[in-house]
Each structure stands twice: as structure tokens, then as C-alpha cells.
């Protein structure tokens, strides 16, 4: 993966595969402590304890189309490469929370990348699930929640192209106000 935003798209796919109805993404850049912390939290079916222990092993996967699962191991490597790490908490039947921490100014940290592209892609392909994105730079916060959008839409699907277009612009503006994470 070339960007943290692509890792986010990838981790959200796990939440979707786990049947989550609501997925909350949070990215927080703390310039004083020099951390970038990304959290993906879902209400999916959760991960059994014995699986959780082995989940960052590339040869562990629930899929049947191939025998390796590289998503979490790659994210773990990307985080550890810049002095951070990966934490996964999960309760069966309740949900999962994945937290990746990166050294914000570390030379080996991959760029945050196109988060707007990631969010629009997720919404376009999953109109029946709710997503929340919190973008925090120090004490400035931007929050986007599809449940707020849905209230304005009536019977219009959230992935209708004019709506997606508006969401793209809304996210770009909101993130620019708070400050882009590079």
C-alpha cells in the first residue's frame, strides 16, 4: 500500500465482511506528541479470541479464495516502521476496533493520502451501511456522518451520483478547514 488512506479502505473491507452496519473511522494528528493515530471501529460480528491472537500472521485468513491475508500484517508493518504499532480489540457479537499509530513526522511514515477518495468509494459501494469520519488536527475537529446526510435525502439513495459528488466536495472543504494530514 502506498498510503495510510488505502490501508483504511482495506481495514473497512474487513468490517464490511464482518457484517457491520456502522463503521467509525477516526484520524487524529497530534503535532505536539508527534503521533498520527487512526482508528476503525465497527459493530460487526467480532473476532474469536483464538483468531485474534494470530490475526496479524499473514498465513491466517477467513477467506477461501486464497490462503494468505495481508491486510492487517501490512498495516502492522507500516505502523512499526515509523515507531508506532497496531492494536486490535474485539468482542464477539459486539464489534472490533483496530488502532494504528504512526510517528507523525517519522521519515518512514507513508503519506496519509487521499482520504476523500477512500470515503467516497466506501459510501458508493455500501449505501446501506453508515459511516462516520472524524478528522482531528490538534484541537480542530471535522466530523462527517452518513446518518446526517441520510436524514436530508428521503428516498434518494446516498450513492446517487449527484449526492456522492456533493459528499466529495463537502469532505474536501471540511478537511481543508481543519487542516490536511499529509
Amino acid at each position, binding site marked *: 500500500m502506498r498510503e495510510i488512506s488505502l490501508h483504511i479502505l482495506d481495514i473497512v473491507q474487513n468490517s464490511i465482511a464482518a457484517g457491520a452496519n456502522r463503521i467509525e473511522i477516526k484520524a487524529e494528528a497530534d503535532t505536539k506528541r508527534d503521533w498520527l493515530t487512526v482508528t476503525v471501529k465497527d459493530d460487526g460480528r467480532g473476532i474469536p479470541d483464538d483468531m485474534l491472537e494470530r490475526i496479524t500472521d499473514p498465513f491466517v485468513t477467513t477467506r477461501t479464495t486464497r490462503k494468505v491475508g495481508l491486510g492487517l500484517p501490512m498495516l502492522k508493518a507500516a505502523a512499526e516502521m515509523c515507531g508506532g504499532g497496531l492494536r486490535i480489540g474485539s468482542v464477539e457479537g459486539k464489534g472490533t476496533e483496530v488502532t494504528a499509530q504512526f510517528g507523525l513526522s517519522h521519515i518512514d511514515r507513508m503519506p496519509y493520502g487521499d482520504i476523500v477518495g477512500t470515503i467516497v468509494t466506501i459510501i458508493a459501494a455500501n449505501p446501506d451501511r453508515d459511516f462516520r469520519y472524524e478528522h482531528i488536527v490538534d484541537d480542530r475537529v471535522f466530523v462527517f456522518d452518513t446518518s446526517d446526510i441520510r436524514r436530508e435525502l428521503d428516498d434518494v439513495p446516498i450513492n*446517487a451520483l449527484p449526492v456522492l459528488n456533493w459528499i466529495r466536495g463537502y469532505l474536501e472543504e471540511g478537511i481543508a478547514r481543519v487542516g490536511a494530514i499529509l
Partner: protein
Amino acid sequence: MKTLADLQKIREQVQKQMKVREGEQRGRIVVAMGTCGIASGARETMSAILDELEKQGVSDVTVTQTGCKGICDKEPVVDVAMPGQPTVTYGLVSPERARAIVNGHVIGGEIQSEWVIAQQD
């Protein structure tokens, strides 16, 4: 500045379109979004598809996603299913190819055979 109030106008506009075609969907595009697909550019492919559909004013095609299909070396992989035609699986779909597939196949009705890796009736 964009506000949630803008959505009212957009809603009315889309509702008008929906009325015209009575909710009928003409076709379906599926982008594979496994780790392999994402690492190969599936997000950019998806963005190009959405952008091209919007540009061409196509509003009756469903765009959705699936996971890894086991053909990781051909990612990004995109399926196109149009009524009266076999479901076509395209491989190595760059954003440029994606735009050509939208215009040639989804709008023009012609399967772009040089990029096809599988067909299913």
C-alpha cells in the same frame, strides 16, 4: 461553503430523475476491493467509473464492490453486467480503461474484448 441544506436541491433533482425511469436499473458494475485490488489501484478505478458515469449523465447503473475473487494478478478487476449480455470480467482495469469500459460497454453496448478475462452467461 457546502452545507447540509444543499442536499434538498440535490434530492429534488434526483427524485425527478428517479420518477422518469421509475427506479429501473439498466446495469451493474462491480469493483473487486480485496487487499490485492486496493493495493493495485481499485480505489482510483472506482473513482474513475463514478466520475465518468456522472460526466456522461448515466444515473441508472449500480456501482458496487466485492472482495477478492482469487485472480489477484489481474487486479484491479471489474465486472460489468448489462441486460441481455453475459457478465463480463475485465482485468488490469486502470482508470483509463475504466473510462473506456463505461463509454464503450456500459453506454455503447460493446464489450471491450481486449481486456476481458472471463465471461459468464
